[in-house]
């Protein structure tokens, strides 16, 4: 029996991670170079459609590795389930995409089997009967060729984009599918998955904002940002800041305007307590109308402001909020 290459396809809650196609392409290339047999495995239940999709590609066989304990995903369950499956099937080489999920469980899996992983590869070579993988070092300045000295199974992961996902060869006919049930004992799973966290996509895109109220050091304290926020809300605008405010963590970094932040050009830019260092100016000087409030009459912001208000922002902003509200109510 020839050696086998097993590609582990990544799915989560019935959704295929498209980068898996790249890994299957990689597997097909390794199979072509070595003459080994290519098989694929889909881990987790409820992935019948993915299994069928994979089986349509040029692979010898597709395994559906199942256990109720594989859902939801946990690194403990994946490591335990796959260890059992791989021990039974004895593939020579196990290929995976270098995804966050794989990075999460594969070190555990490999360690549990007493093996090592060649991770984040960008290619492979088959030279003189030896399979060599290429990895980047020093942020891509060097390419290192690495090979396995241990016994099989060998684990390798491929970097996103290393192979073409749209070049996966289709099979002449659908590959046979075998369902393999793995037993995961109680107590193996120590991880307790919480609800999947999605980083809140910032609702604000300051580059699209028509009105921006921006605060600088003159705001003095974090709690005072509230009055700028009230003004922004009254005007229907967005809140932004100069670097020191974001640097202190008073507002998130993505609200920073200037050379180390965003460049904006709204219709109205209201600068509250911003001195107007060139590092800030370069990020907002394209604004159509600039209103600056600063107690220092020599602040450089006034050189580019269309309206200059010399005074304490704490005296000026609260009545301004009231007037804006009145005008809006009246209009």
């Amino acid at each position, binding site marked *: 029996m020839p050696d086998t290459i097993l590609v582990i396809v990544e799915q989560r809650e019935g959704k295929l991670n498209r980068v898996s196609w790249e890994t299957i392409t990689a597997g097909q290339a390794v199979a072509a170079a070595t003459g080994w047999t290519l098989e694929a495995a889909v881990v987790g239940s409820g992935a019948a459609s993915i299994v069928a999709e994979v089986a349509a590609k040029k692979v010898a066989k597709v395994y559906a590795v199942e256990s109720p304990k594989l859902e939801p995903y946990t690194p403990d369950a994946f490591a335990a389930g796959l260890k059992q499956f791989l021990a039974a099937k004895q593939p020579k080489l196990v290929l995976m995409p270098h995804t966050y999920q794989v990075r999460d469980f594969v070190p555990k899996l490999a360690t549990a089997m007493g093996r090592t992983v060649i991770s984040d590869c960008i290619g492979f070579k088959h030279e003189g009967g030896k399979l060599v993988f290429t990895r980047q*070092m*020093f942020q891509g300045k060097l390419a290192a060729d690495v090979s396995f000295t241990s016994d099989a199974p060998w684990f390798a992961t491929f970097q996103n984009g290393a192979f073409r996902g749209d070049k996966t060869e289709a099979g002449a006919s659908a590959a046979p599918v075998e369902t393999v049930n793995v037993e995961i004992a109680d107590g193996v799973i120590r991880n307790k998955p919480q609800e999947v966290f999605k980083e809140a996509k910032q609702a604000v895109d300051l580059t699209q904002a028509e009105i921006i109220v921006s605060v600088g050091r003159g705001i003095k304290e974090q709690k005072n940002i509230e009055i700028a926020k009230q003004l922004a809300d009254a005007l229907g605008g967005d809140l932004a800041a100069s670097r020191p405010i974001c*640097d202190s963590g008073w507002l998130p970094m993505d609200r920073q305007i200037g*050379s180390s932040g965003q460049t904006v050009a709204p219709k109205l830019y209201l600068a509250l307590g911003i001195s107007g*260092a*060139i*590092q800030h100016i370069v990020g907002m000087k394209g604004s159509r109308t600039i209103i600056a409030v600063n107690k220092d009459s020599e602040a450089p912001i006034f050189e580019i402001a269309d309206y200059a208000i010399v005074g304490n922002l704490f005296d000026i902003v609260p009545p301004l909020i009231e007037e804006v509200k009145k005008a809006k109510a009246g209009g």
Partner: protein
Amino acid sequence: MLIFRKPIEGIERPQMPADVVIVGGGPAGMACALRLAQLIDAHNNEHPDSQLSKENIYVLEKAREIGQHCLSGALLDPRSMNELLPGFEKEAPIDAKVEKESVYFLTEKSKFKFPITPPPLRDHGNYVISLNRFVKWLGSKVEATGITVFTGFAGSELLFDGDRVTGVRTDDKGVDKEGHQKSNFEPGYDLQAKVVILAEGPRGSLTKQLISKFDLAKDANPQTYGVGVKELWEVPAGRIAAGEVIYTLGWPLTTKEYGGAWIYGSKDNVVSLGFVTGLDYADPRLDPQRVLQEFKKHPFVAKLLEGGKMIRYGAKSMPYGGWWAIPPVAGNGWMILGDSAGFLNSARLKGIHLAIKSGMLAAETAYHALIKNDSSSATLGDFQKKVESSWIKEELWKVRNLHQGFEHGMYAGMFHTALQMVTGGRGLRNRYPAKAGYEHMRKLADLPADGGAESHLLGAAKGDGKLTFDKLTDLYHSGTKHEEDQPAHLVIHDTNICNTRCVKEFGSPCQNFCPANVYEMVDDASQPNGKRISLNPSNCVHCKTCDIADPYQIITWVPPEGGGGPNYDGM
């Protein structure tokens, strides 16, 4: 709460064997790499059966691109380049040949021309260059030999085995402000090297680690430094000829401070001008960036720049201490080159040619170490001997006591200089002692509240936006940029000293001596003096002045995440 950068502990790091690792891709490091490649090529031509590889020779450079962090006046004395690459003038980026030089003594409103140019400042035969462009070119020569230059990688720590330096650890990438690993975390590499060569420029951070670990400076004078603050200007045609060199002494400094200015005419009506202020001044309120602004207000300079435009800004420290301040430069597994060692002729304000020469000599030593497969001090110690028998020592010996002579002001300095000139550098005795620069700084209580004769040098420059600039505006023209979300690379060992003692005793001189507005005292009612130290590390231009000038010596400059720093072009 300030979190400072330190290598992440308890992680596995990729290990990489190396024959030679050169830390720092400036003139010294690049000359060293190039010379080493020449020697290996010659060897391989002569010995077909015992080939040496260049594959495991690496240069680490913290800048994203070669030359980006290099700043100097700069005039190049071609002596060492003629040895390294005869005929280099034909292809190197040279802006002008020095055709005319003059030295002036400035008072507030007038100038006095020295009737003859003092011999050390005679620059005929030298070239006006932009150091960063020159090094970029030199770096391309190195890369063409097959030696790898790792740009964007800093040497963050030396690796030791007992009394031997065994390698260099590069910077950890992808560490956030709190010191936690980000999703793009990449641990620094441990480069296990047979020979480690430190060419980090003045006040190198690994050099500092090495000197302190082995107490290398115990028999040397303390190194003393100046900080050069530089602007590049485009001026209307006809103001100064390409290749014209002007040095000034005097105003705006008083007789108590050490320093002076340069003005070099480059091609395309570009003028390089800068002011070097000795970092041994007394008044903690003095601001070297302000000194340059005051200098430009002098009618002589203002007239030259009028109608022109400032296009670049930068700053860099330079070692003044001379021969007696140089520590041992070779040991078990290591060598130190260029400004890191202190190879700078302070009478001529020149160090590039010495840096290059030291790199070449170190390369010869490293080559023998590879041939003999021995990089212990028995072999590398040869570099020390080579330096002492080369023209490096010959040149530095004559001016060995120059800067020490100025420790008590300009008049004493001129007396000593004259005496040293006629005694071959000896003066009153063979070795003048020195004090570290920061020890000259005096407490506010001992100084006139209004600053006295120095008042025009104290505190932040305001700037008129045409001829003179406030620090932040100047800084913008350095192009400096860093990953913002990383720990502070200005390591303050005890911020309590800043908040309780320094603010009262010295009035927080870090705010003044830093030419990049990194240090700031912010209001904080919870502090005894109502002020708290705050840092803007992403403003840093890597000049090292803070590490040098801080009166309590509690600041250690370590490299930030590789790739960050100034973006010098034409500097």
